[in-house]
């Protein structure tokens, strides 16, 4: 009797322990969710705070992605506008045009005569009638050069522009790339800022979840003492609080998703309008399926980490008293 009992005391059958462990998880997960739903107002407020904290960096990330998309579109349009000096004869212009057409660097070479340039300017600028009063066409003839795919890197484009600029007949070879490069470096800066912000806000989410779980633990102090007294392991006591954190994280990921979708939907109309004014077919890129999943996963992981932090500290502190 003595031997059997002490063996039972110190080594409980691991297989039955494992089985009960498996059985308890779905139950505990369900109970934790029920408890969150049981205090709807408090849960809602926490979820909104967490959702906003998650949606901010995620939303900025999407903003960056859209800007990147735009700049890529424009990079595809990289072109060099070559303006001839006023005193260059038409023959000289044509011979230079043939030279450009013969070069492998350019996919497309378009000649715009001074008259064509004036027509286009009238149409687009809205100064149509005012321009009629000019007795001389102030615009020079121009050649638009579109470099091939292989020559579109900023360095190569710049070298080409410099070379053309040095030609005698050329007044100015303007590279419409300058501001794309500026945009690119702005985006690198923006990317860093968003990363830093994401880190801070993730930390905030961690702390908010941790604090919420700490309060929940405080509210269950009596219960924790009792179940520890009747033989609950720390793992058993921890589990519901960990699940609460996971639910909070997952649900706030969902709230963030809704916030982002709502905001994108709200912006979509004006963005189309703006793009239309620039003659572009640009459309906002939203969250892809895998990005949506990542958002939920991020929430879940932050919730898990936050509750681990709180639980590790506070549950060991609660020891039963008689």
């Amino acid at each position, binding site marked *: 009797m003595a031997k059997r009992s002490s063996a039972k005391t110190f080594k409980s059958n691991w297989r039955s*322990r494992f089985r009960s462990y498996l059985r*308890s998880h779905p139950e505990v997960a369900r109970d934790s969710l029920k408890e969150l739903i049981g205090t709807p107002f408090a849960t809602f407020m926490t979820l909104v705070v967490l959702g906003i904290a998650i949606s901010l960096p995620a939303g900025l990330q999407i903003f960056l992605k859209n800007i990147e998309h735009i700049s890529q579109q424009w990079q595809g349009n990289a072109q060099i506008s070559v303006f001839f000096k006023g005193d260059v004869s038409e023959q000289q212009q044509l011979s230079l045009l043939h030279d450009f057409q013969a070069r492998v660097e350019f996919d497309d070479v378009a000649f715009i005569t001074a008259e064509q340039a004036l027509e286009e300017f009238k149409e687009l600028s809205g100064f149509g009638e005012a321009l009629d009063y000019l007795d001389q066409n102030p615009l020079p003839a121009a050649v638009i050069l579109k470099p091939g795919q292989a020559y579109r890197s900023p360095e190569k484009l710049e070298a080409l522009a410099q070379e053309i600029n040095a030609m005698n007949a050329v007044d100015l070879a303007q590279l419409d790339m300058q501001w794309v490069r500026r945009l690119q470096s702005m985006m690198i800066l923006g990317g860093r800022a968003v990363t830093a912000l994401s880190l801070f806000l993730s930390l905030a989410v961690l702390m908010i979840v941790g604090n919420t779980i700490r309060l929940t633990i405080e509210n269950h102090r*009596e219960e924790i003492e009792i179940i520890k007294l009747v033989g609950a392991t720390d793992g058993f006591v921890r589990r519901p609080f960990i699940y609460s954190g996971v639910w909070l994280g997952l649900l706030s990921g969902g709230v963030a998703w809704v916030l982002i979708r709502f905001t994108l939907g709200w912006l979509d109309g004006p963005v189309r309008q703006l793009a239309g004014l620039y003659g572009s077919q640009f459309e906002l890129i939203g969250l892809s399926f895998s990005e949506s999943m990542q958002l939920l996963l991020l929430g879940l992981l932050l919730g898990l980490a936050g509750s681990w932090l709180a639980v590790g500290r506070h549950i060991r502190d609660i020891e039963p008293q*008689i």
Partner: protein
Amino acid sequence: MIQFSNVSKRYASGQEALKNLSFSLERGEMAFLTGHSGAGKSTVLKLISLIERPTAGQFLLSDKDVTRLSSRQVPYVRRQMGVVFQNHRLLSDRTVFDNVALPLSIAGYPPKEAAKKVRAALDKVGLLSKEKMRPIMLSGGEQQRVGIARAMVNKPSLLLADEPTGNLDPDLSADIMNLFAEFNRVGVTVLVASHDLALIAKLRYRMLTLRDGQLVGGR
């Protein structure tokens, strides 16, 4: 079952709760632990239920030295004992049934088997008809019996009780003590801390009397 050898307990506050206490309780024995408040009764129960650890001496439980048992092992040892408290310590947001089932669900019993054991324990304390009620709807004596059912549901070999009749009138107190005696008759080792000397005197069990953390009398 329980063996204390020169056990001392000094709290962080400097209070010396137990001084060189030695006693043993055989398997299947029932005994009362008495003494004025502050004499060390609670400390003895806290040491046995592994809530506190002795500062000196040795403590055997079921012939096994648990003086320096790792805290990971503590829950498994606690599952082998039942503890009854003066203020019941029931969970007010759960039914009587769920309160009694608590130790079983912690130990991972399959629900069907657990339900059988819970009903048997509730039947034993005469509360089978109230399994769906909340503790708050019960009288003080009934609440205490729910606490006893919870302590006994897992058929522990050791039952500890801390002032189990502290809040009850004499008739109810006698009922509770009779319940303990019944458990003892089927082989459970029982240790009851109580200062209700009038009641204890009527029951012919061993008595351990503490004063200032030392044993001053025993039968």
